[in-house]
């Protein structure tokens, strides 16, 4: 069973992003870059399936050469192959990235194409579903449970106040949510192996972006509030403020 896991390099969750002078992108210096945390659930699922059913896991990522250390970090979990699609770091329009990915994924005969449910930088949550349409294969998103019986998949996805149980046949595309599994630690052996895996470079003509970032802003800063008091004695005053001043209860 051959599995593709599409991975994105993102700023570490500790990052306090600063806006560049152009007002449209974030400063790239002094950022610790990591594998998008949701993508690790996808890699883990891919590895578990290949360990059980045989086959290979291929990491695919879109970006400039500078993302190669992050691709190797993904490989270090135990993946077998890697492809980097050459492209700029800041692509705002998911349609552009989805088309490039679809071109590479098409005809490669993957049984399963896995993603994280969204990248934690742009929070778009678009590309996996677009790939499902581009390749005209089943797909679903925000998956927290995955079972495979031959080529029939039964999955659960998170919805408001519950879960949705879905079934479909492979090949398929799914995006993974926290709760699906526990991503493994990178072993020393895995890290050593990942250095030897060649990263295939693919060049594709990109389509024009139709989603344009006009401006990035810091969110409005909240005025620091007040300490109403200490312990249970402060509660009546708090409730009065919530009712009379904030009018939220």
């Amino acid at each position, binding site marked *: 069973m051959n599995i593709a896991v599409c991975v994105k390099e993102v700023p570490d969750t500790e990052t306090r992003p600063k806006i560049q002078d152009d007002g449209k992108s974030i400063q790239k210096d002094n950022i610790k870059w990591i594998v998008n945390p949701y993508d690790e659930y996808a890699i883990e699922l891919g590895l578990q399936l290949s360990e059980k059913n045989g086959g290979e896991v291929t990491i695919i990522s879109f970006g400039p050469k500078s993302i190669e250390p992050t691709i190797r970090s993904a490989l270090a979990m135990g993946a077998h192959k890697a492809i980097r699609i050459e492209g700029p770091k800041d692509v705002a329009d998911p349609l552009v990235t989805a088309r490039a990915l679809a071109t590479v994924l098409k005809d490669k005969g993957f049984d399963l194409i896995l993603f994280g449910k969204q990248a934690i930088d742009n929070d778009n949550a678009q590309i996996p579903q677009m790939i499902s349409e581009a390749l005209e294969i089943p797909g679903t998103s925000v998956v927290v449970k995955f079972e495979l019986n031959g080529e029939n998949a039964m999955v659960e996805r998170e919805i408001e106040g519950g879960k949705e149980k879905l079934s479909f046949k492979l090949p398929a595309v799914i995006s993974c949510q926290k709760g699906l599994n526990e991503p493994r630690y990178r072993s020393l052996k895995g890290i050593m192996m990942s250095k030897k895996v060649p990263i295939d470079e693919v060049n594709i003509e990109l389509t024009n972006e139709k989603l344009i970032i006009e401006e990035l802003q810091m969110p409005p800063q909240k005025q620091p*509030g007040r*300490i109403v008091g200490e312990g249970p004695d402060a509660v009546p005053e708090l409730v009065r403020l919530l009712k009379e001043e904030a009018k939220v209860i």
Partner: protein
Amino acid sequence: MSNILVIYEIRDKNIKKVSFEATTAASHLSKQLSGKVSALLIGSNLGSLTEKPGVYGAEKVYTIDNPALEKHSPDVFAHLISETAKEIGATHIIMGATAMGKDIMPRVAFKLNSPLVQDIIGLEFENNKVSYQRPVIAGKLRSRVSLQSEIQLATIRPNIFQAQENKVSSEVVALSKDLPTPRVIVEEILATGGGKLDVTEAEIIVSGGRGMQGPDNWHLIETLAKTLGAATGASRAVVDSGWREHGEQVGQTGKTVSPNLYIACGISGAIQHQAGMASSKYIVAINKDPEAPIFKLADYGIVGDVKEVLPKLNEEVAKVRGE
């Protein structure tokens, strides 16, 4: 002339509130664009639901009513939406940024080769173009986006745009469309805890962190939430410790929420958590540590042990609610 198509979401024979919020947002925009608002309802046995969009300003209500559409298949719905959009000449397509909306709209965007902006919190018309505002990096930054396309798609975050009644006489148009074979079958919907309110849709959230000292104390959170009609949330630390399900996690690797009131109980307020809840209208923090970063963000704070403060808070809230 613009034609804004609002895609309605129906769950358990009810229209989701965010669909009305989307219709109101569309009505405001259509006035500036001198256009009209249409609604699309897809489902089975729609009945009187078709009267609702007109209450919020939709002049045309398109319906695709078919027993086979009782449960949604994402690819079938995406097909029906994009076909309808083409047929009626939609210039904008808006849907709620729900589990369903966020799954289906990227498919529609791909089919129509038109850009989509997800999870918007602002929608304005300025300098002759529509400007969409959305949080990025889990709310650490805001992004203002424009779409250069004849058809523009957006999903709106629940609870941001208030639904306002604006009754117009609306015409219901039943569309008959062939259904493609679904690629994905929805087998069943599993509700957790009797269809509990979800943090992304709740107006009030009571959320707990490590300061709750263990899952055994969660009844304090749940009791207060029940009194307030609130959803329950959790910090990453307690989800990772297995005290609570991930569906409740608020923050950068959980959900981003914007309720009217967020009550943080025993949550210190790491940057990842702040990113997920800082856009709440009012924040209350209860924490033993007066230096906890959450107090910098909170409108009102109480320094104290949650185990002592929460029962009292529940008692006082119950009094006020009872009045």
